[in-house]
Structures are given as structure tokens and as C-alpha cells.
């Protein structure tokens, strides 16, 4: 894992001092709220429905156990005993006092963490594959590039007041686990035939009000010229992105308006004049950063078959353990090792992505004991121990059970991605958490969930789509109609290599109808699926019509029945 050098640490310390001064000027009234707002947002500090919310950066989702302990302590000391892991691999605290934020940032700085650029119209926390460096299907470990870009983008002077927020994702594996095409810029890393590290650049993707998949605008860019190329790209966006309309200010609108070819041409024109400058990364920088991402001290171990693993459990535990191995344990590059996903989606009890102080402390201990003191945060809002010896999986499962994080629902219907919604967020039009809870309660039968197989269900409380509902196989979007909360359903979204934006099936539903609507959609799938066909394939084969009909048929019966009784 990357360790700050003198420069990184000094920068973060000095940033704490800078923000402390800005907070002080806000408190003494010399800095008006309107002018403080973008400054606090660039430090991840929102003013929410009930209190301030602080979003802490977890660059490319990588976390040490020591850092997780600090986050746990912050949740205890300054919040209400929990934190919320987000779809951008960050963590946020919901109950923060403005005057305490400098102290929190100082605590974070001690463990090489910060909240820089986790919000605001600037380059946001760079996200990546939660299985970077360990995934069996990886071409290239993306983390050195992510770290170099983290440094390059941190407090970048030219791009702190962009037209809108700006999100990067970096991927280096065969299977995209970053939703690369739904980012302002997606960087796909690979090696060319000479073994050199190169990047394909996708631009203009994003969700929100106008979901668009990014377009390939540059192929085979050498890794070291990323700073000059991205400067050119951001400069074009900074100068020509729309500022007259907040809804049209994202780069996706500019790329769409110009067309990807013309946008690429303009970037190329700008890049031509700076590509040979001294902005580009030097080999010495790579060497300094990359040495932190070498492999940990793996033992030489034999690969253990799933069957043998299951047999090692007590007879009465085998079914549950096997299910956990199937859903929550992933293949690793190194024989005898596996990656383990802790589900932060227990059915119906907490908000997806929430972890309590106790859980965070206990999981930090488990990371120390089982995974070289490191963890990952996934964009699906779960936690990962990436380097676990297969031989110790059973032991880990037993211990993790006590923390209520072993529910084997990874990738299943109840592994719901959800934003905090109207319970916390002041942007939201509707609540998301009670919807997630109601669905998890309805689909509480693990056998049934396993039979259904892979289905992604994503819920957003507003059109900003922090819950990524556009790329859920089933998406739920909270909308406001005459001051009332309604929910619109989209179907057919997908993340990964076949990324797709879901389609709205029709008029929205009331909150209380959503579990039944889900049941009708799922029943339709079960009725039409062939063998083990996943939901998305059945949907693609049949199209939206049968699902839509099922969702509305029972509702029209309900309303006529309600009409008859009235």
C-alpha cells in the first residue's frame, strides 16, 4: 500500500491548516456562506438535512487497518457511531459539527488520509477496481497509475473551479469492475506488444439526469504522458464546458454536443503544444510509487478446491459456508489465496454501506490477522479482504460472522446499492433506505436469492444517481410529484464490459408498492428464464414488455380493487 513521503504528508498537513483558517473565517463571519460553500465542498464538507456531512477520500478504494481504526474512532468521537461507505469508494460521516472538522482532518492526516476534492466542481477521488493487484483476470495493476494521478490532481490549481464535478476511474482488468464508461474520464490500462504500459481514454460518460456511456477518444497513450494529455482534456472542458446551466455542465454534454471525434480533435490540438513538456511523469516517479504496490509476503500454498474447503467445515455448517464461498469469495492471482467480500447489506437492518464503530474496529483486526493489514472498499459499498489464505477461510468466516458481515448475498438481489437518499441528503427527492430495507425484507430467503442468481438492484433518491440506478439490472429512482415521493423503475442496466443504461418502464409507483413490483418483475423473470440464465440475459432476450406488463397489471388490479372498496 502506498505510504506518504515527506511531500505528501506536508501537503496534507498544510491543507489542514488552510482549511482550519477557512472554517475560522466562516465562523467569525468574514467569509460568507456563499463563498465558503465551494471551499468546504472541495474538502468534502456538505451541509445536509440535519447536520454537516464529511466525506473522506479513500483513494482507489484502498485502506489500511490503521486507517480504518481511525475512521472508526472518528465515527465514535465526532459522529453517532457509524460511517457510510459510498459508491465512489469514500466514507462519509453524517453528523459533523463545522467547528470540529479541522480536528477531524488533523486526525485523518496522522494516518495519511484527507478529504481533499471528495466533492465540489473539481477532480474527485479517483476510483478503481476493488480487486486491483489481486484479481485473477488482471492485465495490469492500476494502482501506481491511480496514485500518480491522485497526486497530480490533488489541489490542481487550474482545475479547482470547473463547470461541474469531474470523476475519473481507472481499470486494468479483463472484466471492468469500475463502471469505466460512466465516468467523465475512464482510463483503461493494458500493455502493448512490447510490454509497455498504455492507456485507452474514454471521455464523456456519466449518469445523473442525462446518462451517457463514454466514448473512446484516445488509444494506446503511453502511461507517462497522462498528465499532459489529461491537462489538455480538462483545459478544453474548463474553457468550453457549459456554465449557463448546471444540468448541462458535465463534460458528457460537451462531448455529445461536439461529437466525440471533434472533442478528441480539440484535445489533440491542445495536447500537441504541451505533450513534450515537463508535465509528464518520469520513470523515477513511477519507481518511487510502484514499489509500494509489490506483492505482499505470500506463503507458498497449494490451491484448495471448494469441495475440500467445504468438507473442512462441520457438517451442520457446510451449506452456509459453501454458499459464502460461492458468493463472497473471489479467485486470486496467487495459488492458495482468495479475496473475501464482507457484505455491508444485512437484510432489512441497516442502510447499505453502513458500518458501525464496532464493526470497523473488528474488521480492522481481521485485516491484520488475515490480509496483510489491508482492505478495499467496493463501489457496491462492501468491504474486501483481498489476500486471505484459503486454508484460513473457515476461521475467518467464523470470526466475521460475529460482526454480521458474512451474509452471502454478494451480486444477488439484496446486495443493493443505495445512496443515503432523503433520510440524509438535502438533494434527494425521495427516500432510498426504507425502499432498500423493504425489498431486503421481502426477499429474505437465501435459497431463493441464490436460485435467482446474479441481479443488480440499484436505488437512487434523486436524479443525481449516486445510487447508480441507471446501471442496475433493476434501477429504482426516487422522484417528487407534487411534494410526494414516487419511484420510477428502470430495467436492463448493466455495469461491466457490457455496460448499458437501463430503460424506464413507465409511470412511477408509490413506496409501498415497490416490494410487490419487484416481486412481479422477479416472477416474470423466473417464469421465462431458461436453466440458469441470469436476469439481464432473460431481459435482453425478451425485451421490456413482459416485465412492464407484469409490473403494471397487478397495480391496475390493485387500484380497481381499491376503487371498488372506496
Amino acid at each position, binding site marked *: 500500500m502506498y*505510504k*506518504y*513521503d*515527506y*511531500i*505528501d*504528508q*506536508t*501537503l496534507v498537513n*498544510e*491543507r489542514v*491548516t*488552510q482549511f482550519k*483558517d*477557512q472554517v475560522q*473565517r466562516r465562523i467569525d463571519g*468574514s*467569509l460568507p456562506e456563499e*463563498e465558503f460553500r*465551494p*471551499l468546504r465542498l472541495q474538502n468534502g464538507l456538505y451541509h445536509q438535512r440535519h447536520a454537516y456531512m464529511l466525506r473522506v477520500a479513500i483513494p482507489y478504494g484502498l485502506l489500511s487497518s490503521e486507517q480504518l481504526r481511525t475512521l472508526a474512532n472518528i465515527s465514535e468521537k465526532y459522529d453517532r457511531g457509524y460511517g457510510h461507505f459510498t459508491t465512489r469508494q469514500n466514507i462519509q460521516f453524517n453528523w459533523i459539527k463545522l467547528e470540529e472538522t479541522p480536528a477531524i482532518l488533523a486526525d485523518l492526516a496522522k494516518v495519511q488520509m484527507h478529504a481533499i476534492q471528495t466533492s465540489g*466542481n473539481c477532480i474527485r477521488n479517483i476510483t478503481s477496481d476493488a480487486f486491483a493487484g489481486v484479481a485473477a483476470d488482471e492485465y495490469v495493476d492500476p494502482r501506481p497509475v491511480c496514485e500518480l494521478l491522485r*497526486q*497530480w*490532481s*490533488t*489541489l*490542481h*490549481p*487550474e*482545475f*479547482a*473551479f*470547473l463547470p461541474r464535478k469531474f470523476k475519473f476511474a481507472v481499470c486494468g482488468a479483463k472484466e471492468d469492475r469500475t463502471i469505466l464508461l460512466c465516468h467523465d474520464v475512464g482510463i483503461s490500462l493494458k500493455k502493448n506488444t512490447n510490454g509497455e504500459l498504455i492507456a485507452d481514454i474514454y471521455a464523456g460518460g456519466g449518469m445523473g439526469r442525462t446518462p451517457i456511456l463514454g466514448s473512446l477518444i484516445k488509444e494506446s497513450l503511453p502511461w507517462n504522458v497522462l*498528465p499532459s494529455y489529461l491537462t489538455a482534456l480538462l*483545459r478544453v472542458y*474548463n*474553457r468550453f464546458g457549459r*456554465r449557463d446551466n448546471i444540468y448541462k455542465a458535465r463534460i458528457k454534454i460537451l462531448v455529445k454536443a461536439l461529437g466525440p471525434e471533434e472533442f478528441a480533435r480539440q484535445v489533440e490540438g491542445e495536447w500537441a*503544444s*504541451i505533450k513534450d*513538456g*515537463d*508535465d509528464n511523469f*518520469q520513470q523515477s*516517479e513511477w519507481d*518511487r510509487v510502484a514499489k509500494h504496490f509489490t506483492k505482499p509476503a505470500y506463503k507458498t500454498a497449494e490451491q484448495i478446491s471448494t469441495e475440500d474447503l467445504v468438507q473442512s467445515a462441520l457438517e451442520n455448517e457446510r451449506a452456509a459456508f459453501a454458499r459464502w464461498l460461492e458468493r463472497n469469495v473471489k479467485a486470486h492471482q496467487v495459488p492458495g489465496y482468495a479475496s473475501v467480500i464482507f457484505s455491508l447489506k444485512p437484510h432489512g437492518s441497516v442502510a447499505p454501506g453502513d458500518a458501525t464503530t464496532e464493526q470497523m474496529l473488528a474488521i480492522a483486526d481481521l485485516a491484520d490477522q488475515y490480509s496483510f493489514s489491508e482492505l478495499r472498499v467496493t463501489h457496491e459499498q462492501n468491504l474486501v479482504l483481498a489476500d486471505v489464505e484459503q486454508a484460513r477461510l473457515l476461521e475467518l468466516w467464523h470470526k466475521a460472522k460475529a460482526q454480521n458481515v458474512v451474509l452471502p448475498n454478494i451480486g444477488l438481489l439484496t446486495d443493493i446499492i443505495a445512496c443515503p437518499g432523503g433520510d440524509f441528503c438535502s438533494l434527494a427527492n425521495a427516500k432510498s433506505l426504507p425502499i432498500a430495507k423493504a425489498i431486503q425484507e421481502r426477499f429474505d430467503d437465501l435459497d431463493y436469492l441464490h436460485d435467482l442468481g446474479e441481479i443488480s438492484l440499484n436505488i437512487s433518491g434523486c436524479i443525481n444517481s449516486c445510487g447508480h440506478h441507471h446501471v442496475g439490472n433493476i434501477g429504482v429512482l426516487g422522484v417528487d410529484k407534487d411534494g410526494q415521493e414516487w419511484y420510477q423503475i428502470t430495467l436492463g442496466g448493466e455495469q461491466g464490459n457490457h455496460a448499458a443504461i437501463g430503460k424506464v418502464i413507465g409511470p412511477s409507483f408509490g413506496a409501498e408498492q415497490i416490494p410487490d413490483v419487484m416481486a412481479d418483475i422477479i416472477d416474470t423473470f423466473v417464469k421465462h428464464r431458461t436453466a440458469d440464465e441470469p436476469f439481464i440475459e432473460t431481459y435482453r432476450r425478451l425485451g421490456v414488455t413482459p416485465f412492464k406488463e407484469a409490473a403494471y397489471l397487478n397495480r391496475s388490479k390493485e387500484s380497481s380493487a381499491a376503487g371498488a372498496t372506496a
Partner: protein
Amino acid sequence: MSEHVSQTNRVLSYPKGGKPAIITNEWQVWHGDETELSNLNPKQKVLVPFSWWLMHGQAQVKDSTSELAKRIQEKTIGVWFAADDDILKHLDVIEAGKSIWPLVGADFPVFRDGRSFSTAALLRERFHWTGEIRAIGDVLIDQLILGARSGFDSFALRADQNTDVALKQFDLFSVRTQNSWRDCRSQLSNQLTEAV
């Protein structure tokens, strides 16, 4: 504020390699609409809108008898770029301006509008502009570091900004993680790279 005086006549000057200081502002920003240029005091140093220069300035430069030509000779005329001026479309004009204008400005119509950071960066990088570039408009204390690193070396602060706080801004960071007009990134400029 340490002194209760209007600061519209004050400019924060921060030359590359120098120290930040408050200096008296000698330049008036003319917006081109409120009055005729000729109505302004002929001795007054004036920044004219770049768009106005394109329409009127160039022709008058060639006419050595014009009032503008005289002002240019006396080095009392500069231009300011609006946030939406596409300076790359006027390479020749700006290239010629390098020997004519003693000062150029770039405007922040509202502090949240960061286009002029790119304008300054382009002037330094693309045009190799070595003269002064002044930030004008809604220029606030918390933008000073960004501006100074993008290419500005003077700042006409908004009148209500506290100059004491402003002067301290440039000492806040002793390191940086990307290149800028003033410095290259710390990683390349020194060897203090031991892990902490």
C-alpha cells in the same frame, strides 16, 4: 481589515520569484460600455476589453495619429480577456500584443468561474507571455494560490477582501504535487522523498 480604507486602489502583486506585496493600482478596467474611451483621462492607464480591441484597437494602431496609438506608445493601454474569450483563435493578435501591452488582465465574472485560470495558463504556456497578468473581477482570497500557480502575478482583489489574510496565502503550501507556471512539482524539485 487592518485599515479601514477602500482597497479598490490596491493590487496584490506577486511577481514570479518575488514576494507578495500590496501596491497601488495604476490601471483602470474599462468595460467598453459605460463611456467612450476618449472620455477617460488620457494619462490614465486603461485595460480595454479584448473584444473591443479586436473591433477597434487594431485598426487604430496602424493609424499613428489616433489617440489610441498615442496611448499605446505611452504604454497606457492593455487588454483584459473575458472568461469566454477564445484566445487561441487570435494567436497573431496576442503575439503582436506581447510588444504592445504592458499588462493584460483575465476576468472572473464570478469567483466560481474558473475559465480564467486556463486563460492564464495558456498565456504562459502557449504564448510564453512574460509580462504581468492580472486577475480582475470577483477575485477572492481563497483563489489566490490557484491564480498564482496558473500564471497570474497580480490580483485586483475585490474591495471587501482582507489584505492581511491575502498576503499570507502564498505561505500556506511549501510543497506541490503538479507542475505549474511557478514551480515544478516538489517530487522533481528536491529529494525530500523519504517515507515518513
